[in-house]
């Protein structure tokens, strides 16, 4: 039988066969196959389409007939209403069926695609049914009114990667009641309405994942929000045949913060990317610096990626706000070391921010207004296969800062202002393809006129101009080429502009046109072997203009002389960077508990005409569902910065820095909520770029070592509470050349302790707190000074580099939020207070004119941020 005849026969069988029962919002499987050699698709579980709010009270219980296209993987790749009726019922039916999962049609046992007709019925929910006619008043028994029903909502995610699991079957089981089932949507969400209060058992099942059952307490009149994370089945590769391009094989350490947690962490002002600060191994940057310090590495040694493409910064000026709307982020993966060969050109750590697709069920929106900035997010479905997300944010410090600045301190010509914008268009033209187009950017600007020459340095005068901005267009296409081969193509280009000027004494302008790309293929070579191969390139011209003191070694360069006392250096130039790379990574599972990941990466740096080859190896052994050990070792390379290798200011013969990462640790899960990990790490740095004796040039004479221990405790957002406990014991040292003594790195922080917890109080209230206790940064003591008669300034005489240390930093942040839920939208009022007890944390030392007296410079004071947020 030809396929077309088969399809016709199947449609006829379905439409003419026994009518579908639509009892309790379930749909039943289609009829039997038409021929023994062929088996039609069979619905896995049942479908609960819900009931549209707009139809409340109508009493309608329509049956919607749909035409479904079902892939060889059993996914519904297309769902169309055959005979349109009420739009609200039709939309819900389409949505429900797109999330449904089928056993695929088969020919002689081989899955084949199929198109079928399917009828889905609606039933008025019990709580919306008209009450029975009242009994005569005199006959009414004196019984208390029934308690308000409970509601249970939640999401089903994969434990390994926290990706939403669409099509998972959630069954609600209760003694004496018929089971109720729901199928999760594309975002992994499900819901049960009109539940009686009390205990309910939830069974969660998804193909390729291990099922689980949990008891939930349902309170009268309240909504219980749960998240279930399912473990992958042991031999997942054997069954996977989806269009999803998986992330690279598991790194030894990947810490993921999920979207449920991202915006609720105290002290972050609801900013997801600031939650990174809570993770083990993340140091605290000096106040207002907005840097990311990962495992004792220089901020320049780590890279932030957005959907796999590098971005130049993470935070706006001052580090209070990140550049990306938190509610468009799906997850943040943080790799403090031993990261995949997918990432290169850095020897520190990696942060990869994953963006989510916009929702396709209806228009959604989030408006957030607080004391610092305001933002707006809109998610619009575009047909049934695409979505468009638009977001923008602008600060408005500039509207009032001029009025609150003390007279005579500074004259603002452009008060500090930042904005950012994001736009994501996601389209799934077929079950095997996902195309995502993104446009995003960020801008910070601050211009001022100083009131006069600074007492400490008359060169600090005139205008102060700080601006940085970048804009990006990014496109990606993920396609399942076959059931075993996935392809991911990414391309990004844009502009990056940086301008820092201080009168005539200092001026830096950098204009870059980055053009980056990546092509990656993931192949399942065998049930226990997966291979990832790819190429990526970073390129683009850079123009730079510089006036100021000669570029110097950034780290370990204490208490530099004032600008007035330093020779002024003028430099301008252009360079087109071209850095291609190729990588391959194999994930092997020789025995069930053991996963080995072996990778290698080859980089070419045209600017310095040098290759680097980085092999990496990691392994994870899972004893049982509670215990696992892991270890990794790898080489990492990083090319010199532009000013270090540029001919006129640097040394064109510099080589890439090298780092050896070694780490090992153990993970333990106490239960489904609580887990603990301990990991030791060592990084050996070679060819560290340092200033040589001439002062103007650099060489690779430095070395470094970083070692420590991280403890990461976590309470996953199950039930009312989630939180983090992280502690890092670490030492980061550098040696600036042969024969030089070892010294501490500028941001060496021996102890980093973070405690953070968020508790849902009920009735829409949520409260949380974050406490951080961190060793102060090293400082270089001033042991004397020398009066420079040519400038009338004193030049400090420094003691041993970084031989002293600031006192401990500690800070408590709290966040309180109240959410009001309305029929179709939510309103939240929140108060996020940083540094609740106004601790005067030392950030640096300020000296008097001749360095005989000093005073501590304190960091940020208490910062309350009151905001209101509306969500549609």
């Amino acid at each position, binding site marked *: 039988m030809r396929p077309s005849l088969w399809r016709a026969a199947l449609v006829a069988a379905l439409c003419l066969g026994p009518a579908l029962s639509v009892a309790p919002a379930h749909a039943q499987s289609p009829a039997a196959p038409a021929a023994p050699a062929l088996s039609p698709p069979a619905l896995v579980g049942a479908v609960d389409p819900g009931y549209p709010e707009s139809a409340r009270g109508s009493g309608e219980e329509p049956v919607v007939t749909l035409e479904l296209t079902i892939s060889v993987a059993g996914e519904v790749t297309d769902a169309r209403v055959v005979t349109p009726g009420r739009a609200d019922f039709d939309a819900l039916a389409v949505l429900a069926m797109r999330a449904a999962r089928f056993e695929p049609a088969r020919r002689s046992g081989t899955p084949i695609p199929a198109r079928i007709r399917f009828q889905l019925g609606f039933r008025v929910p019990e709580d919306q049914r008209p009450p029975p006619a009242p009994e005569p008043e005199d006959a009414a028994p004196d019984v208390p009114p029934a308690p308000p029903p409970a509601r249970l909502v939640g999401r089903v995610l994969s434990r390994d990667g926290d990706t939403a699991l669409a099509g998972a079957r959630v069954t609600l089981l209760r003694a004496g009641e018929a089971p109720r089932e729901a199928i999760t949507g594309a975002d992994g969400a499900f819901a049960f309405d009109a539940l009686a209060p009390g205990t309910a058992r939830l069974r969660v099942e998804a193909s390729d994942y291990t099922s689980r059952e949990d008891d939930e307490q349902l309170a009268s009149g309240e909504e219980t929000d749960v998240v279930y994370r399912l473990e992958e089945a042991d031999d997942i590769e054997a069954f996977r045949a989806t269009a999803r391009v998986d992330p690279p094989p598991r790194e030894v350490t990947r810490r993921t913060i999920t979207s449920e947690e991202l915006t609720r962490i105290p002290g972050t002002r609801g900013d997801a990317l600031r939650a990174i600060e809570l993770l083990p191994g993340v140091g605290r940057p*000096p106040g207002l610096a907005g840097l990311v310090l990962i495992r004792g590495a220089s901020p320049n040694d780590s890279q932030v990626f957005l959907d796999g493409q590098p971005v130049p*910064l993470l935070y706006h000026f001052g580090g209070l706000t990140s550049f990306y709307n938190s509610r468009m982020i799906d997850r943040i993966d943080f790799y403090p070391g031993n990261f995949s060969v997918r990432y290169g050109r850095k020897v520190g750590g990696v942060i990869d921010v994953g963006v989510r697709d916009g929702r396709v069920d209806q228009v959604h929106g989030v408006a957030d207004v607080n004391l610092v900035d305001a933002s707006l997010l809109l998610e619009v479905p575009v047909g049934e296969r695409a979505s468009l997300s638009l977001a923008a944010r602008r600060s408005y410090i500039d509207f009032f800062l001029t009025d609150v600045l003390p007279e005579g301190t500074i004259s603002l010509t452009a008060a500090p202002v930042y904005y950012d914008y994001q736009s994501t268009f996601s389209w799934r033209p077929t079950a095997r393809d996902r195309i995502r187009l993104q446009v995003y950017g960020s801008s910070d600007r601050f211009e001022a006129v100083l009131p006069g*020459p600074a007492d400490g340095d008359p060169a600090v*005068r005139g205008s102060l101009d700080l601006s940085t901005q970048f804009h990006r267009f990014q496109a990606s296409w993920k396609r399942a080429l076959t059931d075993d081969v996935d392809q991911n193509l990414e391309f990004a280009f844009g502009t990056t502009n940086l301008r820092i000027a201080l009168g005539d004494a200092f001026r830096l302008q950098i204009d870059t046109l980055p053009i980056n790309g990546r092509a990656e293929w993931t192949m399942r070579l065998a049930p226990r072997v997966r291979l990832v191969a790819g190429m990526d390139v970073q390129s683009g011209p850079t123009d730079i203009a510089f006036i100021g003191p000669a570029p110097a070694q950034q780290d370990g360069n204490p208490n530099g002389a004032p600008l007035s006392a330093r020779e002024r250096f003028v430099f301008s130039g252009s360079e087109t960077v071209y850095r291609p790379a190729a990588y391959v990574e194999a994930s092997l599972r020789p025995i069930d508990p053991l996963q080995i990941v072996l990778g290698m990466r080859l980089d070419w740096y045209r600017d310095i005409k040098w290759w680097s080859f980085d092999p990496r190896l990691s392994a994870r052994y899972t004893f049982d569902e509670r215990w696992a050990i892991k270890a990794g070792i790898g080489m990492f390379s990083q090319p010199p*910065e532009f*000013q270090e290798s540029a001919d006129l200011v640097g040394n064109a013969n510099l080589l890439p820095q090298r780092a050896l990462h070694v780490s090992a640790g153990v993970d333990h899960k106490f239960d489904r909520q609580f887990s603990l990990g301990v990991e030791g790490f060592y990084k050996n740095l070679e060819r560290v770029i340092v200033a040589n004796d001439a002062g103007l040039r650099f060489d690779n004479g430095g070395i470094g070592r970083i070692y420590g221990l991280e403890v990461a405790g976590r309470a996953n957002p199950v039930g009312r509470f989630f939180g983090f406990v992280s502690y890092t014991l670490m030492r980061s040292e550098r040696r600036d050349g042969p024969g030089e003594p070892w010294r501490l790195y500028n941001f060496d922080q021996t102890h980093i302790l973070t405690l953070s917890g968020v508790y849902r109080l009920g009735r829409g209230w949520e409260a949380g707190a974050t406490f951080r206790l961190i060793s102060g940064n090293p400082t270089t003591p001033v042991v004397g000074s*020398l009066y420079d008669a040519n400038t*009338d300034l004193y030049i400090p005489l420094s003691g041993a580099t970084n031989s002293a240390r600031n006192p401990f930093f500690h800070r408590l942040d709290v966040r309180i939020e109240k959410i009001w839920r309305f029929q179709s939208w939510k309103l939240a009022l929140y108060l996020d207070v940083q540094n609740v007890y106004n601790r005067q944390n030392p950030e*640096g030392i300020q000296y*008097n004119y001749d360095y005989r007296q000093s005073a501590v410079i304190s960091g940020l004071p208490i910062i309350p941020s009151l905001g209101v947020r509306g969500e549609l």
Partner: protein
Amino acid sequence: MIRRRAWAHTFAATALALSAGGCMSDLDKGSSILDTRVVGVRVEVVGNEAVAAPSPGDVARLTVLLAEPPGADQDPLGWGVGLGPLVREGMGRPIVLEVPVPDAALLGGARSFPLVGQICSNGTPRFSMGDAAPTCSEGSTRATSFLATISLAREGMAPNRHPALAEDFATLAEERWDAPVEALPATGCAALAGTPALPLVTASETAQRLLLRVADAEREDVARTDGSAAKETVTLSQFTSAGSLKRQFSVFEGDAAPDAEVEWTPDLPADPEGTLVRFWFVARDGRGGTAFTTRAVCVVP
């Protein structure tokens, strides 16, 4: 790809410095002369004192400009100035010494050479090659190390000349303000005050306006970084022995007017007979040229 994030340090440091401006009030200000202090070194060519840049073979005269608050103890000063192993030492005030500029061959094409000096109150300087700076003998009550870089005349170019202060260099509260012409007592100056050389000022928290002016015609042309010519920028350091100057420096930009305004607040406990307050002004052209003058006022309650 330049170290983009490294410039975040610059921003953070700037922001912190700006936000920490209030802390400076707790520290001694550079514009307040509370003790004997070096405020400059003037280098002259012997025989052509208007020239600041000697040539090899010339004899350079160095005058160390000392600012000493009225009534301060005149501690005996021991001083020394060294150029490598060569050290000139002396005692007392003023600190003036002459240094033969080495031959061009010895200088090896250098455009300047540094001198390191040491002044010791109640002591004598010690020069040791192993130290970052000279030290003072035991028992010294105060040590000041200084560095003076002597810029040499460039071959084929006119040697740099010292900047000049205008004839009417200063006005105080809109009145002409001249340099003092005689030795003045630390207290009891009220009887002598009321002249342009010693104005009488009432102690107050209200700022007095000082208008300072350099001799515009004497400013030399210099090349900008873009190659164009402009008048030299002159930086004026201003100091006072009492009260509070709003800032330590005034800058006369090449293309700006040759005058600057600075506020001085006479918030000091004045003697009923008058308290003498001295001012020191040192102008620098950034290329080794220096000009120097003083002013004084008498403050009464």
